[in-house]
């Protein structure tokens, strides 16, 4: 051995080196065990975690089904919009990112924060849309600051495009993010939170068909969320198209007429043979496009708080006194119950007294209508005649026939949130007011005032039932549906009821309605040469004359002008169109007839293959703005034309 090491030293060194070797070997053995635990025993767990790290399933929202009109014209389609969203798990400091995003896009930070907090329970990998329908400028601003905005992504999503700003808005409805309560309901089973579903109108009623199946993309991303490659792609399936019964031209004519008139209101036009809805409008309307890519709070708030309530579907939810348009129901009841015959004559001197109280006819200032039979009573809308008939019938028989004609009951149209009107009965009063019906109350009801209230859609059914001879058709908006194998006709729903009506008796009513338009009656403005338009005007008070005085003294801005109605069908023989025009505060029923004229003219021009009439101007409608406030005088109850 060497001189440098003495044997004792050498032995001790050898032992200590061995100790070192064993220590290291022991440590390595422990390490091997450690790696075994992670790599073999717990491999599955970590494999999954690694996959979650780098794989992302990105939803590919499905476009909704297209809506077609009855002739195949595309009414509602889809367009691509750009959303700006945040993926929180890629963002360490959400506050900073929101601040930067707000500065870049001009969207208030509080609003972004708000949007985010509403979805805070979503998993952190799921993108949360912060700015829907971002403008190109916003998109560019965000992309330019990508590095300062980790976790902010832009995604192209299909959104709804509706034909024009407010055409048939209430019929189409609008779409919006599915709500929490909706997710709890069975019909929304399988719908993911954040999905866009129909929230109103046809979009809501036929959401299931219209909603497609969302696809998804599985991509590999790196640690900052940048996409590396695509692993898998399930393309979205577009929702099934639906063909509506709506006629785009007739719809446009209806909208044009309302626009020219400047009045609000509603109109429903049906095919009286089967209940197909040919046109449907409610005014004022909203722009469903504003909802398509998510409505901002200001716009939505303005819609909600608008005193004219543009979100309310007046055609289904507005309940108004029908006024004189109710007279056909009373007349038919009288005939069918055998109380009168068509030749039953009443002398109108301008007013009549029932149960010790005078009731005026609207023609009181002209000295009354003189002797009137059923046909002339309808033509001239004589109040005294129907006071008399109504009084002879009593409330319950009026109720029976009005109900059979579709009033005071739901039409059961295939659109959501329909409200029901009211045709009173003695039983109704007993149940709701715990009071017996007084015969004197029947008098006002006889001319469509008092307790009676109707929705415009039920008035359209009423017109259709009178037109088709007593079949209370069910209005519906679907003509054909596609289950993936092409459009197939959807059979019309069964009528709600059919009355065994004596043709001659109904004919007497229809003759009266023909006379209203063609015989110098109150609806002459709806006359179309050779088309035998039948109709009936109605001018209904929204408040009694005394109360109107009082209320207007308190608030000058309140509108108490009368509502105008026109129910119609045409032609008289084999009617193919029936409907209603309702003008809210339209002052006179004949004003509504002016609008109906344009609708009918368009319908027949199209049927005859002639050029469609141009949209009417305000002057074309010859509206009568004279407020007949003084009508009836001295506070007498009464009805208009």
């Amino acid at each position: 051995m060497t001189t440098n090491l003495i044997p004792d030293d050498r032995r001790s060194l050898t032992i200590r080196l061995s100790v070192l070797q064993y220590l290291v070997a022991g440590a390595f053995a422990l390490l091997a065990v450690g790696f075994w635990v992670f790599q073999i025993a717990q491999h599955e767990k970590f494999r999954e975690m690694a996959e979650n790290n780098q794989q992302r399933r990105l939803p590919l929202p499905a476009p909704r089904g297209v809506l077609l009109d009855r002739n195949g014209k595309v009414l509602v389609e889809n367009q691509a919009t750009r959303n700006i969203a945040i993926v929180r798990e890629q963002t360490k400091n959400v506050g900073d990112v929101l601040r930067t995003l707000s500065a870049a896009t001009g969207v208030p930070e509080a609003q972004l924060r708000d949007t985010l907090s509403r979805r805070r329970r979503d998993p952190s990998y799921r993108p949360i849309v912060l700015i829907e329908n971002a403008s190109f400028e916003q998109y560019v601003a965000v992309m330019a600051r990508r590095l300062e905005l980790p976790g902010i992504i832009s995604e192209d999503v299909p959104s709804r495009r509706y034909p024009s700003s407010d055409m048939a808005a209430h019929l189409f409805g609008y779409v919006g993010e599915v709500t929490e309560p909706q997710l709890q309901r069975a019909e929304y089973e399988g719908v993911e939170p954040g999905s866009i579903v129909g929230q109103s109108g046809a979009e809501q009623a036929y959401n299931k068909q219209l909603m497609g199946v969302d696809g998804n993309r599985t991509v590999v991303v790196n640690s900052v969320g940048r996409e590396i490659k695509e692993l898998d792609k399930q393309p979205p399936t577009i929702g099934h198209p639906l063909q509506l019964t709506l006629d785009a031209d007739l719809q446009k004519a209806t909208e044009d007429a309302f626009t020219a008139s400047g009045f609000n209101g509603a109109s429903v036009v049906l095919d009286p043979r089967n209940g197909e809805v040919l046109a449907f409008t409610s005014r004022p309307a909203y722009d469903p496009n504003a909802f398509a890519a998510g409505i901002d709070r200001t716009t939505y708030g303005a819609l909600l708080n608008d005193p004219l309530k543009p979100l309310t579907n007046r055609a289904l939810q507005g309940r108004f006194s029908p006024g004189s348009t109710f007279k056909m129901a009373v007349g038919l009841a009288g005939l069918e119950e055998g109380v009168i015959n068509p030749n039953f004559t009443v002398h109108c001197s301008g007013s009549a007294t029932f149960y010790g109280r005078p009731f005026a006819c609207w023609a009181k200032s002209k000295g009354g209508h003189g002797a009137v039979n059923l046909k002339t009573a309808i033509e001239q809308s004589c109040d005294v005649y129907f006071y008399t008939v109504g009084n002879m019938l009593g409330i319950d028989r009026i109720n029976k026939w009005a109900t059979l004609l579709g009033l005071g009951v739901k039409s059961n149209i295939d659109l959501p949130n329909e409200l029901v009107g009211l045709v009173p009965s003695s039983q109704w009063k007993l149940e709701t007011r715990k009071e017996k019906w007084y015969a004197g109350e029947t008098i006002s009801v006889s001319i469509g005032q008092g307790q009676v209230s109707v929705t415009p859609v039920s008035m359209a059914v009423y017109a259709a039932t009178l037109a088709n001879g007593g079949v209370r058709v069910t209005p519906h908006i679907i003509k054909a549906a596609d289950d993936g194998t092409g459009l197939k006709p959807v059979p019309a729903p069964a009528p709600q009821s059919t009355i065994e009506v004596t043709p001659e008796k109904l004919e007497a009513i229809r003759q009266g309605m023909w006379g209203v338009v063609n015989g110098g009656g109150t609806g002459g403005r709806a006359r179309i040469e050779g088309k035998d338009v039948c109709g009936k005007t109605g001018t209904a008070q929204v408040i009694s004359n005394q109360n109107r005085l009082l209320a207007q003294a308190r608030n000058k801005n309140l509108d108490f002008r009368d509502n105008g109605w026109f129910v119609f069908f045409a032609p008289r023989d084999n009617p193919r169109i029936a409907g209603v025009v309702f003008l809210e505060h339209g002052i006179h029923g004949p004003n509504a007839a002016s609008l109906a004229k344009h609708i009918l003219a368009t319908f027949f021009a199209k049927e005859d293959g002639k050029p469609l009439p141009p949209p009417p101007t305000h002057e074309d409608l010859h509206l009568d703005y004279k407020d007949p406030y003084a009508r009836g005088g001295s506070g007498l109850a009464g009805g208009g034309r």
Partner: protein
Amino acid sequence: MFERRLYFHVDWLLLGAVLLLSVVGVAMIYSTTYVATPAGGHPGTQPMTQLYALGIGLVALLVCLAVDYRMLAEHSLFVYGGLLLLLVFVLLKGQTQMGGQRWIPIGPFHLQPSEFARIAVALMLAMYFGENRRGAKNPGDLIIGGILTLVPLLLIAKQPDLGTAITLMPVFVGVAFLAGLRLRLLAIIAIACLPLGFFGYKFALKDYQRQRIQTFLDPEQDPRGAGYQTIQARVTVGSGGLTGKGFRHGTQGQYKFLPVAHNDFIFSVLAEEQGFIGVLGALGLYLFVIVRSIEAARLAKDRLGSYLVGGIISGFAFQVIYNVTMSAGLAPVKGITLPLMSYGGSSLIASLAGFGLILNVRMRRFTN
């Protein structure tokens, strides 16, 4: 200086294992730093840099092999002094990167003197204890040895680079242990360290340092912040499974879920891509290198050689064990590189130079 017959005594097996580990390191660096893009991607610049360092490291190894270690030891004071000067220079003029002032730019390279501290300290301590008849039995010598270690340690810790600084401790403990440090003394030091550690934790450590230890103990309490690396290290290793995801198919390192993996977490990437089998292979190689080096210490002609090898290999073994433990998320994240494999020129060169010395001692076991 380099006698021909010495060739026959070079430990080719050890040299081969060391070079193999270095090459595996370059390959793992290539895999981790590959820049993935949707179009395909391209290699990063790091593997080339590492290859240059490997070349320089081989030259350093040859130099350390060629010069008789005893001659080197005689000049150990100059080596040690030079190191201290460099460390002071770094503190005053060094380049700051990644939160530490550690580098001296030399042309295109950046020298990190702290990586060479282990060799210098091992040389100094081996010289001090080896030329000392009493060995480390005398507490006075132990204290002097301790001071010799502590001066560069504190200089490096000041950079701040606690990870590298700490690696000087096992060098000292290794040399002292071989030099006959009484086990009882070692036990006393260990017991004394406990309350010291406690008070140190309470009062000396900065908040972020305490935070690091806490997150290591419970990484889930801050999965996106400080606990992130620990969790991701485990995921990286665990997802590798038995056979691994394959070369360049690791997702954790390549997609940067494990930050700067080519540096401190290169072993995690190896575990991910080569699986448990690869881990066993790499651990086996490292164990072979260490055991074989300790063998060289046993064979050494003199105490100087034994202690020198012991000091160098203790530091090496500590680094490997700590880094691999940390790579599996089983130890707090510290800036302790995996010698031979981690990306970093100075580290690789210093490691190779160290093995040059170990081979040197073994090669010259029969010379006078």
